[in-house]
């Protein structure tokens, strides 16, 4: 590599880089990704650093904010479990990528593929013949005491013949420059989707640099994995689904993202049912078979009948379906057994035993304290070890409270070595490794930060594929070896730098990639339910805001809350549970909860519009003064909510989900409007009530256009109940519902018309032929009652 600047002296660009690198001082005794031990920039970084220093003034700041902006716009978050429980947090991007030369990467990939193959063989043995225990290679306690070794799965062969399909490894570089495996993730590794988003964000931050850097692309990995999963189907039109624990899970965003990206169905345990050994998903067209399940749920939760009884997120009978061989699980239930810390102590021996050769990529040295010799060694070398629960499946730096590091507890107390004899097999010790550092950007300068790398592998018909890259966890201080993301680190993209440009492909432009038809999938009932309620709640919020505005406008005009009309309106608002503007935020929150459960089907813009609405409401509502101030704020809320509705109804693809959303909106509007008509056209209503009804129905202009006279009971009923051309009338809502219901699948044997459609048509006809005179108070409240009952009818046919 004669063209690379070497030891002969700093080239020009390094002088320019001096400012950027002024604080970059690799730590003694620790490898550094950017610089070698002499302080020279490693070859793989040179072009990148040159490009970085060549950026115009301020461009670096702009670049990082572009990356952050991308993640915000994409709605990327992960849930952080901490003091303020379950708060969503922006994905913490460390803006600079980690660069790895392609030659070095090939060596890593070979080692990881070998390791994945080994783990597959271990899986097949511990859930099969059990020779590793019988031959004395692993002690029986490692399984008997392993909370992830699931006895009901012993003897169950996976349909495809393979237990593992998607695994991840955390790896790090030790002081001698060699890579070590820090932990194996075989249960349900998360992060592949985050890796993709991290790549997109970094590409957004440094588009020019990236395009010049020969970065190997990662889309191919996803295509191959997607095709491999499609190939695992039973070949009978059954589906691939991703099983998520639900929106409260810390990586739910990723589940939704990857489901959308790969075109797979996203389901929760309650969406599934086992029927005669077959796994089915409840959809609006009835139960439909699922034959491949990408499990993002820990095994123990997957079947409350045979595994954890308390699980609310599992599917009773799932293990029965696996025994029956109707489902390919990615990965096999019970694969978490390979994740325990103590197993790492035995993997070198297992490799020798099964393959006759040592691991190409070793894991960090581990000792299981169940053996006397290992215990003695650990006791003698406590100062260079961490000691933690043997059966822990935590990440290498994610320790429980009982951990001791270098012989001391987290409180700094030295551990009594006799404790190790007492606790024996429940402990495992691991050598403390100082991980290499990589550049992070801090106040416009580069600083060295410890990092570990997560790498993903997917099984395909041609063997394991390694995602070229993945992501790196980067610690936020150079002193701490703690790079666990939930503890405040950041994530950076990993660029595998090739010799030439990767022509590549991207899944986002399917036309370029040998397009494969996505699977046709019916809408799961739960998703339909959430879309329906999303429609209802946003409409409900809008309705209440209109009524509140009407009230505060009158208060502003008259200044008298004690006037009959104002009192009447205040009472009505009270019956809606809407005494103050704050109350409306509840409906928006409920809408967000519904939207949150269907992130895979819901546009990011729609989500952002809704969160923006809530934020505005939460900021303004508590401070509003009654009267003019509140009325103005309500107008602001109305504008934002119309923005949301516009986005959804203008941009949403007219598939079944959109119909449920629209039915929800129409049903809520019909119900709210008929209630308003009951209250404000009644004989008992005070003077001026008709105007309220018209304002609530947002039909002031229509009324003025249609009637020369002021609003009265008859004109109001005509406009808001019976006028087919008024998009706010009850009749119009029924017509809309009728229209949407006609498109919904009818999956029941028996009558071709669902009860809900029959009832909607009956009500529509009634109103179509009626005149305003036909409606007294009693008949009106009948309409309101019938409208309310439609929800139950809809649920009966589609939402369960």
């Amino acid at each position, binding site marked *: 590599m004669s063209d690379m600047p070497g030891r002969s002296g700093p080239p020009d660009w390094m002088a320019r880089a001096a400012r950027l690198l002024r604080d970059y001082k690799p730590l003694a005794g620790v490898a550094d990704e950017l610089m070698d031990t002499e302080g020279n920039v490693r070859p793989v970084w040179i072009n990148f650093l040159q490009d970085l220093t060549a950026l115009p003034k301020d461009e670096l700041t702009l670049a990082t904010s572009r990356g952050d902006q991308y993640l915000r716009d994409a709605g990327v978050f992960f849930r952080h479990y901490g003091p303020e429980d379950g708060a969503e947090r922006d994905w913490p991007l460390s803006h600079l990528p980690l660069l790895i030369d392609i030659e070095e990467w090939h060596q890593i990939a070979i080692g990881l593929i070998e390791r994945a193959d080994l783990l597959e063989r271990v899986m097949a043995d511990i859930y099969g013949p*059990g020779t590793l225990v019988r031959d004395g290679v692993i002690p029986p*306690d490692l399984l008997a005491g392993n909370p992830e070794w699931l006895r009901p799965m012993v003897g169950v062969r996976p349909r495809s013949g393979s237990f593992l399909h998607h695994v991840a490894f955390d790896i790090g570089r030790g002081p001698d420059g060699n890579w070590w495996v820090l932990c194996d993730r075989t249960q349900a590794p998360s992060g592949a989707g985050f890796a993709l988003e991290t790549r997109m964000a970094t590409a957004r931050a440094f588009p020019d640099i990236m395009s010049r850097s020969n970065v190997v692309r990662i889309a191919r990995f996803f295509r191959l994995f997607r095709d491999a999963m499609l190939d695992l189907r039973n070949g009978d039109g059954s589906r691939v689904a991703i099983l998520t624990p639900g929106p409260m899970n810390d990586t739910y965003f990723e589940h939704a993202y990857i489901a959308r990206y790969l075109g797979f169905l996203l389901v929760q345990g309650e969406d599934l049912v086992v029927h005669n050994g077959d796994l089915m998903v409840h959809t609006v067209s009835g139960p439909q078979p699922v034959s491949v399940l990408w499990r993002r749920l820990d095994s123990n939760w997957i079947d409350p*009948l045979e595994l954890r009884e308390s699980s609310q997120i599992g599917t009773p009978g799932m293990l029965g379906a696996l025994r029956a061989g109707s489902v390919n699980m990615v990965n096999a239930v019970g694969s978490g057994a390979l994740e325990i810390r103590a197993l790492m102590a035995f993997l070198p021996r297992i490799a020798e035993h099964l393959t006759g050769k040592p691991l190409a990529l070793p894991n960090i040295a581990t000792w299981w304290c169940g053996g006397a010799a290992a215990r003695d060694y650990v006791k003698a070398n406590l100062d260079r070890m961490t000691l933690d629960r043997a059966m822990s499946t935590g990440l290498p730096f994610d320790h429980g409270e009982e951990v001791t590091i270098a012989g001391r507890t987290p409180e700094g107390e030295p551990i009594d070595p006799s404790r190790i004899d007492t606790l024996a097999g429940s402990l495992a010790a691991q050598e403390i490794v100082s991980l290499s550092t990589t550049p992070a950007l801090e106040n416009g300068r580069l600083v060295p930060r410890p990092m570990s790398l997560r790498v993903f592998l997917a099984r395909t018909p041609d063997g394991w594929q390694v995602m070229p890259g993945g992501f790196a966890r980067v610690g936020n201080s150079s002193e701490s070896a703690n790079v666990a993301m939930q503890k405040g680190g950041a994530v950076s993209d990993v660029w595998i730098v090739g010799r030439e440009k990767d022509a590549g492909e991207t899944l986002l432009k399917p036309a370029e990639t040998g397009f494969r038809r996505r699977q046709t999938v019916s809408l799961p009932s739960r998703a339909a339910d959430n879309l329906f309620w999303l429609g209802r709640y946003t409409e409900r919020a809008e309705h209440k805001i209109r009524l509140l505005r009407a009230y505060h406008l009158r208060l502003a005009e008259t200044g008298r809350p004690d006037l009959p009309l104002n009192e009447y309106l205040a009472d009505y608002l009270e019956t809606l549970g809407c005494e103050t503007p704050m109350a409306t935020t509840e409906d928006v929150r409920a809408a967000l909860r519904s939207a949150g459960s269907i992130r895979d089907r819901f546009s990011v813009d729609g989500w952002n519009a809704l969160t923006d609405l809530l934020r505005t409401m939460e900021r303004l509502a508590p401070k509003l003064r009654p009267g003019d101030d509140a009325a103005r704020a309500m107008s602001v809320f109305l504008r934002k909510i119309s923005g949301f509705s516009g986005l959804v109804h203008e941009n949403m693809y007219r598939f079944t989900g959109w119909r449920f959303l629209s039915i929800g909106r129409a049903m809520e509007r019909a119900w709210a409007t008929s209630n308003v008509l009951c209250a404000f056209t009644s004989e008992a209503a005070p003077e001026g009530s008709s105007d309220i009804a018209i304002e609530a129905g947002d039909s002031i202009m229509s009324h003025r256009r249609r009637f020369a006279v002021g609003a009265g009971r008859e004109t109001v009923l005509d406009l808001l109940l019976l006028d087919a051309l008024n998009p706010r009338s009850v009749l119009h809502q029924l017509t809309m519902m009728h229209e949407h219901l006609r498109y919904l699948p009818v999956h029941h044997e028996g009558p071709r018309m669902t009860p809900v459609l029959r009832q909607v048509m009956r009500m529509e006809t009634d109103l179509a032929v009626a005149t305003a005179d036909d409606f007294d108070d009693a008949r009106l409240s009948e309409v309101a009652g019938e409208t309310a009952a439609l929800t139950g009818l809809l649920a009966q046919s589609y939402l369960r």
Partner: protein
Amino acid sequence: MLYDISLKIAYDYDSSADAGRHILRIVPADLPGEQRVIASSLTIHPTPSERVTRRDFFDNACVDIAYDDPVSETEFRVTARVERHDAPPALDVSPDLPSLANELTQHASIGPAAPHHFLFPSERVAYHPEIVAWAREVSAGCFTAFSITRTICDAVHDGLTFDPEATMVDTPVDEAFRLKRGVCQDFTHITIAALRGLGIPAGYVSGYLRTLPPEGEEKLEGADAMHAWVRAWCGADMGWVELDPTNRMLAGLDHVVVARGRDYFDLAPVKGALRTAGAQTTTQSVDVKEVHPT
């Protein structure tokens, strides 16, 4: 000894229960050398949509059933004729605890019969330091694994009052231990926790107990429903022994085995509740009659 066994378990649901699944472990086991099932039948009402018989990890027979449609009541009936053999007298040839631990490390198997399964916390029996401390205290002075086991079983019996009202099917072990009351399930779980805590592999046996005692003997506790007792591994030579802490005795001719596992979770007679909004009532009746061959 020959028994005619009948069991009826019935569930009544206030509101119709949604479609559901169960695993049943209620039929006596055929155990060569220990007991022989001459005839048995299991009837289920209403007839389930699915019914599959299989063996679980611990080699117990179990029946998976499912209902596609909502049901308002379910009833499970077992009738069986079982011949129970005399268990060999337990001559104490068990090792002391350090030797027992050593024997365990020599035992290289993870099959269903491996004692290692029964040493670690299981779903219903966690590690309870206060039970273990108590066990250490009451068994002080005993040296062999079997004498420790026997002493602890007796101490559980003597320290606890049989009281069906005190605990529920899901009362945690340590709570029953503090209450000093409970039924066979609690007696058994407490004994298991104590034995495991001392390093003796211990598991759960569910089964039937003869209803009426032989003439001149007292009626046994727990004979009116399905019963539970303990099994403990007392070394390679002595193997598994079964003891009934509820009745302060070795399990023997009066005990008919249905299933063996780590704790109640592995063996619940009827597993998997139906999804229902309302309350449910359960009735259970058992009759284990000695049959005199004519």
